[in-house]
């Protein structure tokens, strides 16, 4: 058999070397971070043997517990809100004939992906300061509002992709068979959209869990999520406790990705 013609990146000299280098660069720091979370000593640079010490001390740390709870709560609420909004936005932008200003609407929905995060953060800070000024409310809800908003495009992307790949005649067939628009949505669109919704929600969840910049600007006094708590710790004394928290966050993210793949696999 003749070699297929054309450019094949895998056949280039040094391809393997570069690939291995990239993977090393990506994963060595993470592997080290996980490794040092089990360090018996107090240093994050000198290995002194294996222990669960930092996990135990983290578990006992009230501040960490509080931050973790807020992080989880925040991620759950904001991913739920963002996903609901994203489903509606995706339906509105795909279930209709092409229209003028399509690109603009798309850009507006995806604003948080395009505007630098620090700009969004500052803008939110100023905007919320204004509201605080008029209403006097300075509580923790601002954080939830901010997270819900910037998670929308992350939830929107996979849902939109799924909707675009969905055969329109299925919904027409359902309405032809006496399904009212609401029941067509419940019985046909939603079940078929489910993998996309799940993917969107998980992405939004992880993005919210992970956010530092916007959270740092918007959070109320004394309010801390895990990432902002860690940032605060790093400014003072760095202990492997930070590694332990990071490892747990990592574990959560990886688990979500695996669960998502398993769910998707079973659908097909």
């Amino acid at each position, binding site marked *: 058999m003749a070699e297929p013609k054309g450019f094949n990146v895998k056949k280039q000299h040094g391809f393997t070397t570069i690939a291995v280098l990239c993977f090393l660069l990506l994963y060595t720091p993470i592997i080290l971070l996980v490794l040092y979370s089990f360090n018996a000593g107090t240093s994050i640079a000198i290995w002194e043997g294996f222990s669960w010490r930092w996990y135990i001390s983290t578990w006992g740390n009230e501040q960490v517990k509080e931050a973790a709870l807020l992080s989880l709560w925040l991620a759950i609420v904001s991913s739920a809100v963002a996903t609901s909004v994203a489903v509606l936005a995706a339906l509105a932008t795909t279930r209709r004939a092409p229209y003028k200003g399509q690109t603009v609407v798309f850009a507006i929905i995806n604003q948080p992906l395009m505007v630098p995060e620090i700009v969004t953060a500052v803008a939110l800070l100023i905007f919320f300061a204004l509201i605080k000024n008029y209403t006097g409310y300075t509580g923790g809800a601002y954080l939830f509002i901010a997270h819900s908003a910037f998670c929308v495009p992350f939830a929107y992307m996979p849902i939109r992709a799924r909707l675009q790949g969905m*055969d329109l*005649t*299925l919904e*027409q*067939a*359902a*309405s*032809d*068979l*006496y*399904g*009212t*628009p609401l*029941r*067509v949505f419940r*019985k*046909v669109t939603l*079940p*078929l959209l489910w993998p996309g919704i799940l993917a969107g929600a998980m992405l939004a969840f992880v993005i919210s869990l992970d956010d530092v910049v916007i959270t740092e600007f918007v959070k109320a006094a004394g309010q801390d999520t895990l990432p902002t708590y860690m940032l605060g710790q790093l400014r003072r004394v760095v202990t492997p406790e930070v590694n332990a928290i990071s490892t747990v966050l990592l574990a959560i993210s990886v688990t979500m990705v695996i669960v998502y793949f398993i769910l998707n696999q079973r659908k097909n």
Partner: protein
Amino acid sequence: MIEIDSVSKVFGSGATAFTALNDVSVTIRENEFFTLLGPSGCGKTTLLRTIAGFNAPSSGSVRLDGEDLVALPPYKRPVNTVFQNYALFPHMTVAENIGFGLDMLNRPKSEIKATVAEMLELVQMTPMADRRTSEISGGQQQRVALARALAPRPKVLLLDEPLSALDYKLRKGMQVELKRLQNETGITFVFVTHDQEEALSMSDRIAVMSNSRILQVGSPHDIYDHPAERFVAEFIGETNFLTGKIAGQEGETLRVALDVGGEIIARQPPGDPAGQAVTVAVRPEHAHFCAPDSAEATVTGEVSNVVYLGTDTHFHLVLSDGTPFALRLQNTPERAADAKLGDRVGIRVAPGVAQVLRD
């Protein structure tokens, strides 16, 4: 009874506007197997979707048993569709697919179960009731789509080229089955196809469409033997075209003086022929051999090719002015007159068999 009255459909607007239906009027009778036949892009699907309610006509009206359908959304029309790509719900089993319409109509569970069982029986899919739709073959999917559309007992069933994805043998089988289902259920079938043979063999009546218009409506016999326009004659079966001038009228028939010489008595088209100069359509199997230049010969020609086809023999002739002419004879044992390559032959067309075309 479906009355489609002056329906037009324009897609887009301005420079990109496209007229997919141009002033279409037709009445489809109760319990009829009605076929829309035409080449790709002529507007068959658009007309079907207008009846189903997936697109609103730009003008004109659609009535079912006197009730105006245009204002009703698809889910309020007693009309079901078998989609070209079946559109079965992939997240449901075969039985759930078939029961979907009844479920949407809020029928009691027991009734749904009974009807689904009956439908499964009807399309011979009972053993596969609990399969996913992705786990059955194309022909089986087609039958499920049919059962799903029939289960709610619609007044009208719309079928958009439902057999086009099937192989020849399966298609033949399904044609018989569809016809049987239509007889048994008494439901009006509106069937779309671009296969003329399928249309001729299955339909009570056929509407031939071209370029967003309906050209002719009639029984298969009507359409085949008495095409009103050149397009219809050309699209369905093989036809010879002879030009001439009208020389006189005798009741239902016209006497036409042919340009090649000789006269032919042919049926008048519906409506008035456009002028003196007309085209006459003659089917190859409606012509016979006779002695050249004899009194009974309509025209005279020379055999340029003979093709043996088993049941028939196909003769290619050239008339005296060079016009090609095809003649087809059945190969019966008692067939007498025959012709060989290069023979000079007379061609006889019985009076009233040929058809004068409208254009």
